[in-house]
């Protein structure tokens, strides 16, 4: 609402996507510069890799949330869906003892399937996305506990499972930069999502739905189908996040996940995607996710007491977004 109601004139100036990216970047760069000056440990390779690794799960979830938010919807279930997919993988690999690729496919399929269900509830039953995905969040949280028997499922019988996120394919080739696979997967997902959003019909409808759903419907487009497709795609991406977190922890932790949706949505919004839909970029979301993890990491490196970390994080999130707004206005 607020966004579309911005003064239409000089103030509501639009800037091109590429330029916006650069601007959002500068908040991130400012943070990096400050932390680098404050601590010599910050810019070391290992720490940079730690930051990237810490971004991977939230980044992937945020990309899923980005798709949904651009349609003007919201997905509160990304966190628990991730967990659900991890648990499904655990069941497939550890309980059933099936081979690794089956587990990978199972996770992504589970995510897509749940996304299909959420999307159908939203599109066909017209339940508002907030409620549909809130309900789904709770359902998945419960089901993960039920399926796993409220115990973590370990992947000790699947050697190589930890390699998905923790191994380094890049490091095997260029030992100097052992970028973990999890980070590469994040970039891969981001690239794919950006491609889908900008180059495919699905992406175009994603924006169109967020811009004016009724106009799209009256253009003869089967909006239900596309909406469901968006939620299903987002669900599949959550499946990837499920693999990442399971691999990082070498286990499916059934109780984890709730609360992660807020970090994901925060990354999306910090990255400049409007909650009222119709506008957004994957690269912005990536930057938003990086801002969050750089902040967390930097404050820890500086040994800031935990209660103050929270205060500073809150303040900087507001300031980062405000700076972005200021810069756009002064264009």
């Amino acid at each position, binding site marked *: 609402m607020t966004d579309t109601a911005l003064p239409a004139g*000089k103030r509501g100036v639009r800037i091109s996507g590429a330029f916006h990216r650069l601007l959002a970047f500068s908040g991130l760069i400012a943070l990096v510069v400050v932390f680098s000056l404050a601590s010599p440990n910050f810019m070391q390779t290992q720490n940079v890799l730690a930051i990237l690794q810490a971004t991977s799960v939230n980044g992937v979830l945020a990309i899923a949330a980005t798709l949904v938010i651009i349609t003007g919807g919201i997905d509160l279930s990304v966190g628990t869906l991730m967990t659900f997919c991890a648990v499904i993988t655990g069941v497939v690999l550890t309980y059933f003892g099936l081979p690794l690729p089956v587990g990978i496919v199972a996770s992504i399929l589970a995510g897509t399937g749940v996304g299909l269900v959420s999307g159908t509830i939203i599109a066909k039953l017209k339940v508002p996305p907030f409620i549909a995905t809130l309900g789904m969040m709770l359902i998945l949280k419960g089901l993960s506990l039920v399926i796993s028997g409220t115990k973590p499922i370990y992947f000790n019988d699947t050697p190589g499972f930890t390699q998905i996120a923790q191994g380094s394919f890049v490091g095997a080739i260029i030992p100097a930069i052992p970028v973990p696979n999890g980070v590469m997967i994040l970039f891969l997902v981001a690239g794919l999502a950006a491609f889908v959003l900008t180059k495919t019909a699905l992406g175009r409808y994603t*924006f169109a739905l967020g811009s004016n759903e*009724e*106009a799209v419907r009256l*253009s003869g*487009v*089967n909006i239900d189908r596309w909406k469901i497709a968006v939620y299903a795609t987002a669900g599949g991406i959550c499946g990837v996040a499920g693999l990442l977190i399971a691999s990082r922890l070498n286990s499916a932790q059934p109780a984890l996940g709730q609360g992660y949706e807020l970090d994901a949505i925060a990354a999306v919004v910090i990255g400049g995607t409007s909650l009222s839909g119709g506008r957004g970029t994957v690269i912005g979301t990536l930057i938003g996710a990086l801002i969050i993890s750089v902040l967390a990491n930097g404050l820890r490196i500086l040994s800031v007491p935990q209660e103050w970390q929270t205060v500073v994080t809150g303040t900087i999130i507001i300031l980062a977004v405000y700076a972005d707004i200021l810069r756009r206005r002064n264009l």
Partner: protein
Amino acid sequence: MDALIELIGIGKSFPGVRALHNVNFDLQAGEVHALMGENGAGKSTLMKILSGVYRRDAGDIRLDGKPVEIGSPRQAQEMGIGIIHQELALMRDLTAAQNIFIGREPRQLGGWLLDEKALNRATQTIFDSMNLKLAPTVPVGSLTVAKQQMVEIAKALSYRSRILIMDEPTAALNDAEIAELFVIINRLKAEGVGIVYISHKMDEIKRISDRVTVMRDGEYVGTVPAATTSMETIISMMVGRTLSNDALVVPNTSAAPVALEVRNLNRGREIRDVSFSVRQGEILGLAGLMGAGRTEVARAIFGADPRDSGEIWVNGQRVGISTPGDAVHAGIGYLSEDRKHFGLATGMNVRNNIALASLARFTRPGGLLDDGAMRKVAERYIGQLSIKTPSDTQEARLLSGGNQQKVVIAKWLLRDCDILIFDEPTRGIDVGAKSEIYKLLIALAAEGKAIIVISSELPEVLRLSHRIAVMCEGRLTGMLPGGASQEEIMHLATQRQSSVIETTNQRKTA
């Protein structure tokens, strides 16, 4: 005598667009000064500067001869400048009365409480003075565009401004309502209010205005007295050339196959047993007063609203249409009367809006979009319909109202349907473009397409239609041949109670 307001050398640029350059304008007390120009000429922008919505880049504004700065809508109001915006600016969840008095609600108990009764009473008084039959307590979001427009007018009147700007106030109104509005304008004029009047309906200019200022491409062209200047002169000032006005030619389509047949369509009280058919190559005009149910019929055919009963046949085949998707598949296209809510994805660019109904055509295997082809097509339509936009990647919401409408038309032209329903296709479109659109519709019909045109402008219906269907209160009250007279149409269209109370003074101005 000093002018009420004077605009001197006004300039205004948006990124990529020079909307105004060195524009002059002045308004005397007690005059109606018409502002004319093609779509995108800069009329609305100039008026937004005058009403404090935009800041000017260059030039001076003088109020009563004294230079002033108008920094916000509030300041404009305080200076006695009121405006009816072209794009409705209403709060859809609030009632008509609440909308009209937003920011100036009557209070009680020392200002602590709203006096809802006084609010509704005051609103009723305004409605009465406009001869408008509308409950002050009706939620605005549930009103038709026409009634919303009347609420906007009521709101502007409630300010009792010395300067009243009306940006296309009649775009959504029918003749009776327009007549009523003119009564009001004449009354205000007599009270010494200066009125800026923007409209694309040329006949209104003659009827109501004292002077005419013409703009073209953001520049000032000239100011002429309305009484002594011929319409042709004004039009040529606007478009830079003279327009030919072709006479209606009714082709003989009696042998052509029936493209669309509607049988016994019913939907609540809005559509009652409507049946008609359109042949290939035929233009069927759908006439009627506001609320006659024309839009409802179109939406029901198109599957936008569910229908209670009735059959739809396309090319001799019964088709089950329950969604707009079904309709488009069956070859039916529908251009809505409310472009902002139902026509445009305002946040998307022109190219995407044009391609919105035809994306499948640009989709390559794997879901990939051929953006190059989309650009070419978009540019073709931008040229063909002379859509004024810096590029095909401009966001649709940044176009002038008329150009937005052209984008929606382009969307349906591109979709290439066999049956096209145009609901108020020329709403807010300038004379030049209007005649282009008429040519286009005629050409489409000549190609064999079946066309239904819903229009509240009788001259337009008469100018285009091969046959005219007239509706009243949800019923089809008659079918007239092309070239019928306005009186015949009005006779069929008025077997009902009008939402405007018919009065004698209405006839006087009409």
